[in-house]
């Protein structure tokens, strides 16, 4: 593989985490404009841990996920009572606050005679763990897809479990779900935290791929892209969001056929597609039809 292909595939993998994070919330019936904040929390946490304190990548990523999940839980606790649009707006406000806090965050320390750490709006340079440990771009790509396939497998198994059915019930009709004895608030808090942790996981890997992050990487554009990926790919299976990312980053950006017009093409495709398929390409109906007939999974 040449460097360009590796780069495109890496980006597909990294954005898939964010799309999956938006996806689990959509399945549970919540629209969040703020998942990019937890992606950012993950990026900054993992960067601080490896670059400033010399943690190994695995420990740094675990810390990033814990902090991302915790941050999401805190936002969820104060906003989950809100319904629909109010929740979406509250997540947007929280995410923009997080972005501004990244801009205000200045915390550096001397590492090997060099000052490393977040430098406000100038960003955070020198997150070089991957290169310092002799990992090639191809190796990191394999790592990203390894982690991603574990996550997707876990989600696919979860979707076929009782908990998965509960989640969909909450997403499709919360009142009825409550009426059959599901504790909606607890389920949603769990989903919000898990989605935060998934986004943070992606952010941790993103920071180590780029070696440099800055606050405006995590603006609302990123969050709404994640939503669009999840919704275009489809809400029927965890493979949907991956398809959404692959269509935009892989086909439209990667092929460079529409250079200069990519946003116009992707925007038009998304808007028209959602008219025909409001729950995406791989929606529940398609997934049900496929799993029942062909694959013998039932």
């Amino acid at each position, binding site marked *: 593989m040449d460097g360009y292909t590796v780069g495109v595939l890496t980006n597909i993998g990294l954005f898939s985490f964010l799309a999956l994070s938006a996806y689990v919330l959509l399945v549970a019936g919540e629209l969040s404009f703020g998942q990019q904040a937890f992606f950012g929390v993950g990026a900054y946490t993992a960067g601080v841990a490896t670059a400033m304190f010399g943690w190994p990548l695995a420990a740094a990523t675990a810390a990033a996920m814990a902090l991302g999940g915790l941050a999401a839980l805190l936002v969820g606790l104060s906003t989950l009572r809100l319904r629909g649009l109010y929740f979406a707006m509250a997540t947007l406000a929280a995410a923009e606050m997080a972005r501004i806090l990244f801009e205000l965050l200045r915390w550096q320390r001397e590492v090997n005679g060099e000052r490393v750490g977040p430098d406000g709006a100038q960003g955070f340079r020198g997150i070089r763990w991957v290169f310092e440990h002799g990992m090639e771009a191809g190796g990191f790509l394999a790592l990203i897809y390894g982690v991603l396939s574990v996550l997707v497998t876990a989600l696919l198994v979860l979707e076929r479990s009782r908990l998965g059915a509960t989640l969909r019930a909450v997403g*499709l009709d919360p009142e009825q779900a409550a009426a059959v004895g599901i504790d909606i608030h607890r389920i949603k808090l769990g989903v919000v935290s898990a989605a935060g942790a998934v986004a943070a996981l992606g952010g941790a890997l993103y920071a180590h791929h780029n070696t440099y992050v800055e606050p405006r990487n995590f603006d609302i554009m990123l969050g709404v892209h994640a939503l669009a990926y999840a919704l275009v790919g489809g809400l029927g299976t965890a493979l949907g969001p991956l398809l959404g990312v692959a269509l935009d980053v892989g086909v439209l950006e990667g092929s460079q056929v529409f250079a200069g017009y990519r946003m*116009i093409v992707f925007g038009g495709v998304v808007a028209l597609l959602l008219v025909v398929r409001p729950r995406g390409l791989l929606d529940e109906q398609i997934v049900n039809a496929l799993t029942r007939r062909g694959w013998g999974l039932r």
Partner: protein
Amino acid sequence: MLADLAQNTLDGLGAGASYAVLALGFTLVFGVLRLANLAYGPAIMLGAYAATWVSLHAPVPLLALAAITVAGSVAAGAYVERVCFAPHRRARAGSGPAGAAAMAAMVASFAVWMQLEEAATLALPRHLYAFPPLTTGPPLSLGPLALRMETPIGLGVAAAVCAALWWMLYRARFGLAVRAVIERPAAAGLSGIDVSRVSAAAFAVASSVGGVGGFLVAATHGQVTPHLGMWTTLKGMLAMMIGGLGSLPGAVAGGMVLGVLESHSQWYLGPQARDLTAYLLLFALLAWRSRGLARRG
């Protein structure tokens, strides 16, 4: 000290006037659709870009530029309505998972936002263009205070737009139909109102109000950038949420509160704190009061 406080309040009211106009348009769209139209600002940005493009090629009076901004916003807004919201209105009337069509419509409006932004940058590729300023003279001095002429003009325009909207909604026959669609779309349809036409017309009115707000912003700042789209959506939405959803006086109050608050926090705490304060206020209002300052009947 006291003079600073008064001066900041005055400047904040000036900025708040354009926020109020933007929030009025956003509120009308929100009332009819019950959805946030993310492409609201980008459509206005396209109108402002059309005016900028004309002003680069010919010397045109300010009023003509305002008209072009409004016309451009209405045209782009009509495209947004056709592509993002009209198709999903039918879907929402039918069965299907609750909220699915609403989510699809909102994400579609984001997709069209990207289109509009790229169209604007293709037409005028530089990062920043000058926009003819609203006034050129020095500010008026009122004792220790300086009154920028934009402030009274903005407040006057905001008052006029609010009065016109009020008249349209509560005195005109068309407004009766709009209010019926806002209250009970199904019942409005049964009583012979063409819901989809009334919605489209209300959307056009909202886009033209937004265009007026966009012109005020562009002419006050004296520049346009592609970020104007996102900026406009955020300010309009923020002011609407602060004022409580779906209320015209609330939208005006929300715009003023936002303007004054930003002006003070910028003065005392710096530009980053200004935005932080605005979002913190929105978050706190949502989390603790969940309805904004004004409650609706």
